[in-house]
């Protein structure tokens, strides 16, 4: 395998070092270190209960890690230590946005409102911390129009512009997933963390999701970190794969490298060694042919 310096080592947008998270006696994440390359799509994979969502919750400030350091470098060149920040500051200052495994939309609000809430902080300033807004002075109206335009852009991009004025709770499952991504993007993040974005999607929707994620990276330059089970998403679009098992990292590399790592196959697919070969063959049937060895 190549030994040249890879993107995630040379230019990391996020570096996680020695992250450990304990709940009582249970060690959910154990001394985990990995980096997310700027502009990369990084996949965090592993069997259920491997601690992937816990890692996400640490990065986005919902959990305070027991030990460890997470440094985030947004485009503006600033440096933020995420373990020291409350969750909302992680989103506001460190420019990390996220979605949730069990979709958390504001279901009683319209799609447009959902995307406006995501632009809360700039709009709050525009409304003069509400005081000027109540009196109807200041440039709030213009700023709100801009925010609506931004929402329109994202609604267009996720193909839900026609449903802009419907409540988010009325959307079908796949559309809710897309809206959640759009909402996260409306905060203007440098790192987008997606918790199982393809869960419950049919193959067509999965393909659309892939296209959306690729275009987010291309058009907005946002780095993406995602937890995923769907191998077609992981293998199809990611630049970098980190594999967890029982809170510990067991592999880290390009999709091709990790796919061929027997430890990953054994741990990830949950089969005993004699069957590993069998599965390796099957994996090759689908993904092996389309990609040459690096």
């Amino acid at each position, binding site marked *: 395998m190549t030994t040249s310096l890879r993107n995630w080592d040379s230019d990391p947008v996020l570096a996680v070092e020695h992250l450990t998270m304990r709940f009582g006696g249970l060690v959910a994440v154990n001394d985990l270190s990995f980096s997310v390359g700027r502009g990369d799509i990084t996949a965090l994979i592993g069997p259920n209960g491997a601690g992937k969502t816990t890692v996400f919750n640490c990065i986005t400030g919902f959990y305070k890690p027991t030990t460890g350091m997470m440094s985030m470098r947004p485009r503006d060149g600033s440096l933020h230590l995420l373990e020291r920040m409350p969750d909302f500051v992680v*989103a506001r200052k460190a420019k990390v946005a996220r979605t949730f495994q069990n979709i958390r939309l504001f279901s009683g609000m319209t799609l447009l409102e959902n995307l406006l809430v995501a632009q809360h902080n700039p709009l709050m300033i525009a409304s003069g911390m509400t005081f000027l807004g109540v009196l109807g002075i200041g440039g709030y109206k213009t700023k709100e129009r801009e925010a609506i335009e931004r929402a329109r852009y994202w609604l267009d991009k996720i193909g839900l512009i026609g449903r802009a004025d419907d409540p988010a709770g009325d959307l079908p499952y796949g559309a809710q997933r897309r809206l959640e991504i759009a909402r996260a993007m409306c905060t203007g993040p440098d790192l987008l963390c997606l918790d199982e974005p393809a869960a419950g999607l049919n193959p067509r929707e999965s393909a659309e999701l892939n296209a959306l994620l690729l275009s987010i990276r291309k058009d907005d330059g946002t780095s993406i970190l995602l937890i995923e089970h769907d191998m077609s998403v992981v293998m199809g679009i990611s630049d970098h794969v980190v594999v967890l098992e029982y809170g510990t990292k067991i592999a880290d590399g390009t999709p091709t490298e990790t796919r061929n790592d027997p430890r990953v196959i054994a741990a990830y697919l949950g089969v005993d060694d004699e069957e590993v070969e069998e599965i390796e063959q099957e994996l090759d049937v689908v993904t092996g042919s389309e990609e040459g060895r690096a």
Partner: protein
Amino acid sequence: MNSAVKTNERAGIDFGRALKDGVIVGIIAFALLGPLVGLKTEQNMSNELIVQNRLGLAAILSVIVGVGRFLLSAFIYPRIAARGNRSKAAATLAELEARAKLTQGLSIVGLIFLFVYPLLIISLFGVQGSIKWVDNYGVQILIYVMLGWGLNIVIGLAGLLDLGYVAFYAVGAYSYSLLAINFHLSFWVLLPIAGMLAAFWGIILGFPVLRLRGDYLAIVTLAFGEIIRLVLINWKAFSGGSAGISSIPKVTMFGIYSFDVSAPNNFAKAFHLAASSAYYKVFLYYIILMLALLTAFITLRLRRLPIGRAWEALREDEVACRSLGINTTNTKLTAFAIGAMFGGFAGSFFAARQGFVSPESFVFMESAVIVAIVVLGGMGSMIGVALAAVAMIGGTELLRELDFLKAVFGNDFNPDQYRMLIFGLAMVGIMVWKPRGFVSARQPTAFLFKRKTVSGDLVKEGHG
């Protein structure tokens, strides 16, 4: 008979079953009412308790309950079940739109009515006769409408259950009373001050408690409300204790005219009218109407600003809010403070209107009534809250008018006693009948193409 029952099952009416229900419920009712109503404890001449036998009355009441249950089982429940089967799906968009149109129309008509109400009453009942209708109904209900709208920000929009709202009402009332008496400042100066003091207390109390969730928040706010009341009772040097504060100055007409009978610039004297407190009542009516409308106006405005959207988003999903960079603590605090501020306005108005305040006016039951108005109205809906205030406050006020029942039940009968009993029953009944309140649909605050009403089924209730 038996086969008839069987065949009727599909049709929905099963008299045998209903009869059984009725008899069982009647027996249970008698087991409970027998002692509680049928055996009344009374003190005799030598101050000893004796039991007075009223088992006949208890039996009659039990039969009424049993028959009521029979009628419910036989006629009402099958109908509800049938209707439930028919329209299981949520209300269609068209229905929602029609309802939204209706409420909109209703609020315009209601607004006009509110403005002409005192004039209408005076022309109907004369100047002196209008006092009761303007004061007991008009002013009284509007105070609760305003309190309901104020609390609606906290409960309805931000989804935080505050059971101690009356504390801010008390802060407003005492601020006005003490400052007006000690510093001789006018109502118009003190109104904003009282509001700000209440908001300040809202922040003081809100800061530690707002990280609590759900029922815990409710209980802590309740405890705070009680603490404030108990301090008012016990800190006699400050608040006059349970005796309260009396001779609180009246509101002046912006310093130009006074409503004090002795004052040289008395309103009635200045216009050579017959002396009557009715003018003051009408004046108070318009003040509270204006204050209530101010509350409504600011709330509607806030809903379209980022802070208002953040409140509603908070009610929908707090975790998601935090993931979007919203400082939820500050957002909750602003809701708490602004709600408290309106409570403070209402409180100082209340003190000026009564001329007397005491801790008695700020018991937990008041908070409970205001919360009930907000929830019964349908959380977040201004018109719903107003309707609930009219129904609950107006309804219980109307019960005061039931003196004619004395003719039926004898002179010992005091219909006023039944006011709160019926109020409580109505609370339970309305909750069971409409758990989401009168108006549960939500109007979006912004739209791209067309404003569409959001069905109440999707709107969340908040976690606190």
